[in-house]
């Protein structure tokens, strides 16, 4: 007889996710992924000025801040025909890439690490041995000192002694599957704190260009920040110097701290390369930080890898990406399509809220066919993984040299095969790999290109020709595909008589957290937990193992749930 386990709230993620499980003999046999928050932002966009849409859609998520805004302005520009100058695009690239770094670091240290790191065990560590451990794993991070490790140990000891554990209250510190030696735990806790300082510092790249973070400001047609080497009120050498430092800090932190920590921790939990295999299909349109106006297949010059998909874990074959093969199932969602249909392509979908769940408070949702606010996107009828794992695999399969080099190095040091990347640890490893690639691209390509342009006198950041609504077509549609921290994101907009007629977002966490389709095929979260009946859950009161697996996707639930325009109509996928 199966035992039922509910994890709600599933913490250390963005937003509200509920996971329901059935377990037998210490293994998960059934899983339901349930989005329990709905906001309706697309409804709210109807009839507004399309130049404002970025400010609304940016508020879909404050963790992956900026990415919805960039995707929105790119989609609107695609619709109205605005052409942002190259320097504006490079500024956006710098914002996207720096966010990709910061977001991955926050995820690893502050959202994911406590799945593997036992804070209470850190006090048993000897600071000198901790330094030896750090050296042994190749961590050359400048924060590694005996004095520092002693301070952190004493801080943790003080918290434990006080009996007031703050954010560590109720953690699973007695769980038998915390495996790191005390020195690794202490080092990781110290790096947890260092990572807070790091992200706070380097994200100021956003503040220079967008005035603030979270939620920097953007502009349809370019950027609002001016650049001019010879004016004090424009971005000049003073800010360039700061940005250069923050980028250098990023490369340093990722190289000397994040990557060695990731490899060391995953090395101890190596069986997680055989746990948590999810849907064997992958989709990406480019490397992290890419944002294409219109069909991504027409825009490949800005990314070293092409849009593509991989099916059935066959990493030797990359198939071309066709936007027309995207559909969305509402079989498990509290939504309806007309005529009782369960799946429609986005271009003709009409969706209405149809809540059939229990009135809260409730105990269990999984007995009903419908159990979530999230749709279940499918590509060619298949559930797809998106995010770092998909981008890394597609880059690897296309022979992107730096990806191949880093992945091969990591696989060798961990003694794993490429096939094992479809796993809990594989997704976490791919995120670290991608973070390094993003930092290096920012340091070696994007920022230098921006500076080189500036040197040539290119200071234009705004296309004013399409600013006035009178310059727009009476009706126009546009879209943007982007690669953001959690995966593939697209925004679709139709502008009519100067106002938004339709707006839709297709979001990474929807791809991943969506539930079963009408064929009863589970979504990627569900598959990772219940795909083979072998995922461990030793003690249902301490669901550490499924937390590891779900966190490996980096859920962003506020992004996941979206639907409806005011007429209850799903937005058309427009050809442009």
């Amino acid at each position, binding site marked *: 007889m199966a035992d039922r386990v*509910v994890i*709600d*709230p599933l*913490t*250390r*993620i963005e937003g509200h996710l*509920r996971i329901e499980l059935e377990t037998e003999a210490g293994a998960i046999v059934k899983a339901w992924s349930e989005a*329990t*928050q*709905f*906001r309706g932002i697309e409804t*709210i966009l109807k009839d507004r000025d399309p*130049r*404002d849409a970025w400010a*609304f859609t940016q508020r879909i998520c*404050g*963790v992956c*801040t900026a990415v919805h805004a960039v995707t929105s302005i790119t989609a609107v520009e695609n619709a109205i025909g605005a052409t942002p100058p190259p320097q504006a695009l490079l500024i956006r690239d710098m914002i996207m890439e720096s966010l990709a770094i910061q977001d991955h670091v*926050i995820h690893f240290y502050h959202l994911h690490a406590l799945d593997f790191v036992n804070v209470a065990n850190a006090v048993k560590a000897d600071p000198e041995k901790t330094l030896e451990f750090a050296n042994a794993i190749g961590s050359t991070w400048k924060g590694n000192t005996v004095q*520092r490790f002693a*301070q952190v140990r*004493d*801080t943790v000891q003080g918290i434990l002694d006080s009996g007031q554990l*703050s*954010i*560590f*209250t*109720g*953690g*699973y510190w007695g769980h038998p599957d915390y495996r790191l030696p005390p020195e690794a735990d202490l080092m990781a806790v110290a790096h947890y*704190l*260092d990572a807070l300082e*790091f*992200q*706070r510092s380097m994200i*100021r790249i956003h*503040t220079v*260009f967008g005035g*603030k*973070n*979270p*939620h920097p*400001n*953007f*502009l349809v*047609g370019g950027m*609002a*920040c001016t650049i001019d080497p010879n*004016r004090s009120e424009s971005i000049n050498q003073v800010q360039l110097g*700061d940005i250069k430092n923050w980028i250098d800090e990023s490369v340093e932190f990722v190289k000397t701290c994040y990557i060695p920590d990731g490899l060391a921790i995953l090395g101890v939990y190596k069986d997680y390369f055989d746990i948590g295999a999810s849907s064997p299909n992958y989709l990406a349109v480019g490397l992290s930080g890419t944002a294409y106006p219109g069909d991504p297949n027409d825009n490949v010059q800005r990314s070293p890898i092409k849009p593509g998909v991989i099916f059935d874990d066959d990493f030797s074959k990359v198939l071309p990406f066709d936007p027309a093969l995207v559909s969305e199932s509402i079989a498990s969602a509290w939504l309806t399509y007309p005529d009782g249909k369960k799946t429609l392509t986005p271009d003709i979908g009409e969706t209405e809220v149809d809540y059939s769940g229990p009135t*809260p408070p409730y105990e269990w949702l999984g007995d009903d066919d419908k159990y979530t606010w999230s749709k279940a996107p499918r590509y060619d009828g298949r559930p797809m993984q998106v995010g770092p794992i998909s981008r890394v695999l597609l880059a690897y399969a296309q022979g992107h040299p730096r990806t191949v080099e880093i992945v091969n190095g990591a696989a060798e040091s961990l003694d794993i095969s490429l096939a094992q990347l479809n796993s809990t640890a594989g997704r976490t490893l791919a995120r670290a790999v991608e973070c390094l690639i993003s930092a290096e691209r920012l340091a070696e390509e994007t920022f230098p290109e921006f500076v080189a342009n500036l040197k040539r006198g290119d*200071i234009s950041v705004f296309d*004013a020709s399409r*600013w006035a*609504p009178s310059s727009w077509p009476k009706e126009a549609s546009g879209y943007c595909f982007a690669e953001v921290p959690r995966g593939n994101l697209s925004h679709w907009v139709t502008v009519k008589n*100067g106002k938004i007629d339709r707006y839709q977002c297709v979001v990474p966490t929807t791809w991943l957290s969506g539930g079963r389709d009408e064929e009863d095929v589970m979504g990627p979260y569900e598959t990772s937990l219940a795909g083979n009946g072998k995922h461990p859950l030793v003690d249902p*009161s301490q*669901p550490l193992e499924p937390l590891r697996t779900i966190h490996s996707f980096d859920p962003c639930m*506020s992004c996941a749930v979206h639907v*409806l325009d005011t007429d209850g109509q799903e937005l058309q996928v427009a050809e442009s």
Partner: protein
Amino acid sequence: MTYSLDGWQEPTFAENLEKAGVSRRDFLKFCGGLAAAFAAGSAVMGSVPRALAEPTDGPVTADDIAQALDSVTKPVVVWLQLQECTGCMESVLRSGGTTVEDVVLNLLSVEYNELVMAAAGDAANSVLDKINEEPHILVVNGSIPIKDNGIYCCIGGESAESVLRKSAKNAEAILAVGACAVFGSVQAAKPNPTGAVGVDQIIRDKPVINVAGCPPIGEIILASVAYILTHGTTPKTDAEGRPLFAYDQRIHDSCQRRPHFDAGQFVRTFDDEGARNGWCLYHMGCKGPSTFSACPIIQWNMHTNWPVGAGHPCIGCTEKDFFDRFTPLYNRLPRVPGLGIEATAEKVGLGMVAATVAGVAIHTGVTAIRKGAGKRAEAATPLEAFGDIGAESAAVLAEPEVASDDVTATNDSGKVE
């Protein structure tokens, strides 16, 4: 690089304070506030214990501190996240003044916060149930969708409203942090599909401190909490519940570009000469004249910059219903003498009333703006703060403006299209 690896992680709370150079007087005041706020049971109304009430100067030792702190424990915090985007917690992580490390490890015991807490599921809910029974500080991010029995945001199988009410019951201070918690924000924008409302529309029997902004500056969020610890009381607020220490100034009055407004130097198109020279963004739709916030003073991300400093008009995110009242974002604020603080600005600066009224269509949002701002204007806005307006600005401002409800009506340069 500006960050250092020390300075906050001393072994004990006492040594942290000592290292930070806390004087005896300040420390005793701090302890008095703490004791009054928490050990004495009633968070904000207690008196300072006698033993701590007679401060003397001189360096304070760790022993003094330890002894004094014997009688108090760290205040317990419940930090809820309801219908929102997590941007407010991200802003907290960015604070460089009082840092999140300070707050979480040294100053407070933040025992429930979904973004950072170790526990999940039942373990997390047990923690919450336990703290809810004890005195605590409640911080809330996110709005409460009350439509359709609360189905649009459920946590642990309960509606957001139920979660909020349970945590508010024994809360000794309640802080609504961020535009969503203050008034519903983006999801409450028309047509507000989920019936999203702010905390003070649910919790009516206790004062709610409204830390406004989308998100608020991280330093302001944590200073709002630390204020309670330092002063033993919640911060003084304006008529909308916003702490005066961060919301008593209009952006327009503290703006680095204000001299250009006074001199009549305006950006007319993004990236024009004026933009590159840092001129005033009023004509690009800046909501600074109607927005109360310390953005220009405190700035963002460790004093790096702020929105107007980066060339974008203020979108007014600390003001109620800004997603409806202040949009379209790039339309110039309506200028209607006689009806609100913008009008007051012109009256004071130009010394004319009737002349500028003529021919001005009344924007439908004005009434709403006045409702929000009127109380403050009476209570806290010093009229002299507007100062003098130069002749060129006076001329520009005296031009009649067309009402801007229609997106095609006014745009760049305020021209009719």
